[in-house]
Every structure is written in structure tokens, then in C-alpha cells.
């Protein structure tokens, strides 16, 4: 039998969070979901490479009425269309909802629930692992796309560098907020992914085009107000959206996003602490 005479005490919330973080990082990086993270982060880089190659070869695809489309404009479009509308919410939804529901579906949550740690620390630790992984993968992808696209049409990296920093901060904040919201959904509802997709591609899209205060109940509203590039009008919805656009100030957006993050993560921890998970046999 294991001899162990040292009297032990339950881990503090912070220590437990960090230990859960250690376990979760490995799980996140070496799971099948890594394929998605690679695709989501690698896709824009591949696209940027193709555009750069097309530009270098002088193909007319990148010319509108004979004039070249500038690299910074392309990069701005990529930030809006690929990162802000796809990569950030989708990674948030896919990873955020899985933080708890994966363990419940795989029935491994029992091993964590029968340890002397606060249950809330499980969701917070896993959330931090999600944030570390996604930020470390997405931000380098943004930087690579920036470096590849900006010089097209004579754009200057030195001049636009502050914009890149703003983009990086904005996307990191987006990943943090969406992750927290979806962690809450994952800890609270039985089919979290469907709910999350409805939230991102249903509710957020709809609320943004409805005049009035409804848009204030979306994450996208605050995130979009922080984007340093002009919104591309690629679809009818975005055209309508820009018509009614009354963006809040940057400080108020950052404050609102931080508030959403803290509240969502707090409720997620509370849900895990108090909810009972009946595992399928």
C-alpha cells in the first residue's frame, strides 16, 4: 500500500486552477481538434501566400479597373472576414463549449470531481489553457498574414505596424470573451455546440442588423467597434449593419467586453460548482 503520512489539505483555488491548466494544455494541443485550430489559423496564411504569389506574378485578379488593390486593404478585409467573423467566434465556440462538455461526454469528469479541489477551478483552469493555446496559434497566424499582405501595392509595414498591434489585442480579447461565454454555455446546457452556433451565426448576426439596443447584447458589437479597419460591404447584411452602425467608444467597448468575460466565467465556475452531471452509462 502507498505509505503516506503527510496530512494534506485541499489545494487553493489558484493552485488547483494552475494544475488543471497543466493537464488541459496537453489535452488541447494533442487532440483531434488541433486539426481545426491548424486549419483556422493556417487557412488565412495560405490565402495570404496565394495572394502574394498572384501579386508577384502580376496576375490581373488583384486589379480592379486596372488599379491594384492595396495590401493593407486586403489585410483589413482578412481581419474582418476571416478572423473576426470566423476564426475568433468559431474557435471560441468549438473549444469553449468543449471545456466541460467533452469531459462529461467522455465520462472522465468523475476523476476531476472526486479530487479535493473546488469544481470551479476545473473550468477556470481549462479556460486558461484554451486561451493560451488559441492565442499562441492565432496571433502568429495574423502576424504572418500581415507580413505577407502589407507590402502588396506598396504598403509599408512600418507605417501600419500600430494597426497590427491593435488587431492582435482585439483578437486576443475576442478569443478571451467568446471563450468565456461558450465555457458558460458548455457548463450549463446539454447540447452546447448547437446553442453556440445559433448564438454566433443566428443571434449575433440578427441583432447587429436590428436598429435599437438589441446589438448591445452581442459580443460582436463591442469587438467590431475596436477594429482599426473599415468594414467591408461584402453582403447585404453588412451593408444594412453599417447603415445603423453607432459604434461605442473604445474604452466603453473594452470595459463591456471585460465585464462579459468576468461575468460569464464566474457563472461558468458557479454552474460547475452547483450543477449535477448525470453521466450516460
Amino acid at each position, binding site marked *: 500500500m*502507498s505509505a*503516506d503520512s503527510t496530512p494534506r489539505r485541499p489545494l487553493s483555488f489558484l493552485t488547483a486552477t494552475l494544475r488543471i491548466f497543466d493537464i488541459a494544455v496537453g489535452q488541447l494541443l494533442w487532440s483531434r481538434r488541433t486539426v481545426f485550430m491548424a486549419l483556422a489559423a493556417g487557412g488565412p496564411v495560405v490565402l495570404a501566400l496565394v495572394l502574394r504569389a498572384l501579386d508577384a506574378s502580376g496576375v490581373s485578379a488583384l486589379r480592379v479597373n486596372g488599379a491594384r488593390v492595396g495590401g493593407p486593404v486586403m489585410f483589413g478585409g482578412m481581419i474582418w472576414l476571416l478572423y473576426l467573423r470566423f476564426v475568433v467566434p468559431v474557435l471560441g465556440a468549438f473549444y469553449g463549449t468543449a471545456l466541460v462538455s467533452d469531459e462529461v461526454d467522455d465520462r472522465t469528469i*468523475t476523476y476531476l470531481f472526486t479530487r*479535493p479541489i473546488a*469544481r470551479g477551478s476545473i473550468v477556470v483552469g481549462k479556460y486558461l489553457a484554451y486561451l493560451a493555446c488559441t492565442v499562441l496559434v492565432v496571433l502568429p497566424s495574423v502576424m504572418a498574414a500581415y507580413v505577407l499582405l502589407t507590402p502588396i501595392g506598396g504598403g509599408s509595414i512600418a507605417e501600419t505596424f500600430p494597426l497590427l498591434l491593435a488587431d492582435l489585442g482585439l483578437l486576443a480579447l475576442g478569443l478571451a470573451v467568446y471563450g468565456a461565454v461558450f465555457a458558460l454555455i458548455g457548463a450549463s446546457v446539454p447540447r452546447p455546440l448547437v446553442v453556440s452556433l445559433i448564438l454566433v451565426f443566428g443571434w449575433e448576426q440578427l441583432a447587429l442588423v436590428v436598429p435599437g439596443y438589441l446589438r448591445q447584447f452581442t459580443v460582436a458589437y463591442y469587438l467590431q467597434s475596436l477594429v482599426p479597419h473599415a468594414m467591408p460591404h461584402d453582403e447585404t447584411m453588412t451593408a444594412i449593419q453599417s447603415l445603423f452602425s453607432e459604434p461605442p467608444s473604445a474604452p466603453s467597448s473594452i470595459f463591456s467586453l471585460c465585464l462579459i468575460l468576468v461575468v460569464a466565467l464566474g457563472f461558468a465556475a458557479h454552474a460547475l460548482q452547483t450543477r449535477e452531471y448525470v453521466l450516460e452509462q
Partner: protein
Amino acid sequence: MTEAAIVSTEHLSKWYGQVIGLNDVTLSVAGGVTGLLGPNGAGKSTLLKLITGQLKPSKGAVRVLGEPVWGNPAIYLRMGVCPEQDAFYDRMTGLEWLAALLRLQGYGEREAVAAGVAALEQVDLQEAANKRIGAYSKGMRQRVKLAQSIAHSPDLLILDEPLSGMDPLARRKTIRLLRTWAASGKNVIVSSHVLHEIEALTSNILLMHNGRVLAEGNVHQIRDLIDEHPHTVCIRSRHPRELARELVAHDDLLSLRFEDGAVYVQTARPDVFYARLTGMAAADPTGDIYEVTSPDDNLQAVFDYLVKS
């Protein structure tokens, strides 16, 4: 610890929507090894999940080692849980998994690895310590699950169907391990639906059926119940009429009937009856009796009997 109640419940009930998992159970489990016995769906796993704080009681209360268990993570310093489900972090090796879980028990990094290695040795998995759990066989998975529950040396070990999926050798070793564990003053609650598995571990059992505790006490008393309640035996013989004539001469026979060429007898004292039948079969040089079976020599028969009585 062995004298005081290690687990006590008061009017404990659990229902899942409209389905009752556990129905008004009041019990007190003393120290040592206790077997939780019952057929599938009896409520054993529900009771164990309530005792281990994985489920919240719908009604009533449960105390483990003198403390409430729901929302009390400190209790897991003294409790080890081996759940029923075959679920693991398949990409981790056995040792990585144990060390990670031990870190959550408050162990330092080195300490956790050392305790993990020791626990894997106890379940004979030291050679597979650095293999991925995904590559383990069913029996190895059962053993690594057991290892994680004993690795932090808890006072109370709760095991839900720990022997299922193990080969006979591993089963024997596990039984020996649990007996040694109990002999060192620790407590074990183990569930199974197989009577002889429980008998091999302990004589102290709780019999469950339909979400209720039917009986608690010594396994031998349960055995006696099996032996004492009217017991049906089916005997096939080449000359059933002559055999029946021999059998009715004794007063422990309650009834006798012929069915499909066999003699069905009901006896009040199966032990005496079997002894006599063995003698008759041995004494008969023609080998008239060629098959003896008992349609109700199983746990379900005892449950049916206890429910009726």
C-alpha cells in the same frame, strides 16, 4: 474507524426525472470491507455516486467519514473512487495520468510520480506505466483505474464493479490487494452483481433491489436464506417414476411434479436434500440420474424470495 459508521444515509432518495434510482434508503455502513450486492439496475451505482458526491440527493442526507459529501471537496483527501465507466484520457500514459491526478490531490511533482509508480506496482502495471492508456487491454484499464483510486492512500475506497473485465488471474490479485488493504485498517465499499465475487472479498454485505436496501448483514445469513427458502430442483433420470417413489419417502420434500420427462421437486432443506441425492446417485450402479439442475439457484431467486417475504 472500523467501529464507527463510515457511511450513513438518512431517507436518501434519488430520482432522475420520473425514474427512481434510489428509494428512501436509511443505512449505516461500518468499517472494513462492505459489499454492495444487487442485480443490474438495483441502484448500486446511484448509491455509490451519492456517497462519492457525484450526485446530489433528491431527498435525505448522506454522510461519509462523519462529513457531508456534496460540495465538500476536502472529503476526497480521505476517499478514493474507482468509477464503473471505462473512461480515460487515452492519450496519456498510465503514469502520466496517475501523476496528474495525484497533483490534484496536493502532491508535488516528484512525489506524485513516486506515488504513481508505487500504485502501478500494486496493480501489476509497472511495465505498462509508460504506455498510452489507449493501448491498454480492458483488464489493464480496470487496473489502472483501481491504481488511481488507491494512489493517495485514502481511508475509504469506493469501487463500482471493479472486477468486471478482468481475467481470472488479475481478479484473484485484485481481490488479494483489496483484502490486504482492508487488513491494514482501511475501509472499502465495493459493488458487484456477482455473489461469489463479493463473497471472496467480504462477509459483510448490503443487498439491493429496485432502489431499496433489502437486507444487510453477513453473507452467510444470505446464503442461509438461499438454503432455507423452498428450493426447486430438476432431476432427469432414465426411470423418473422409481426415483420419485424414493424421494417422497422423506419429509423435507414439499412438492413433486413431472414435466418434460423430468422430476421437479421442491424442498425445504436443500442442503439435506442434495446430500441424500448425491448418495443416491453414487449408490445407483446403472447411472439412472444423469442431470440435476436448480432453476432458482441464483441471486435473483433470493431477491424474489426476499421481496415476497
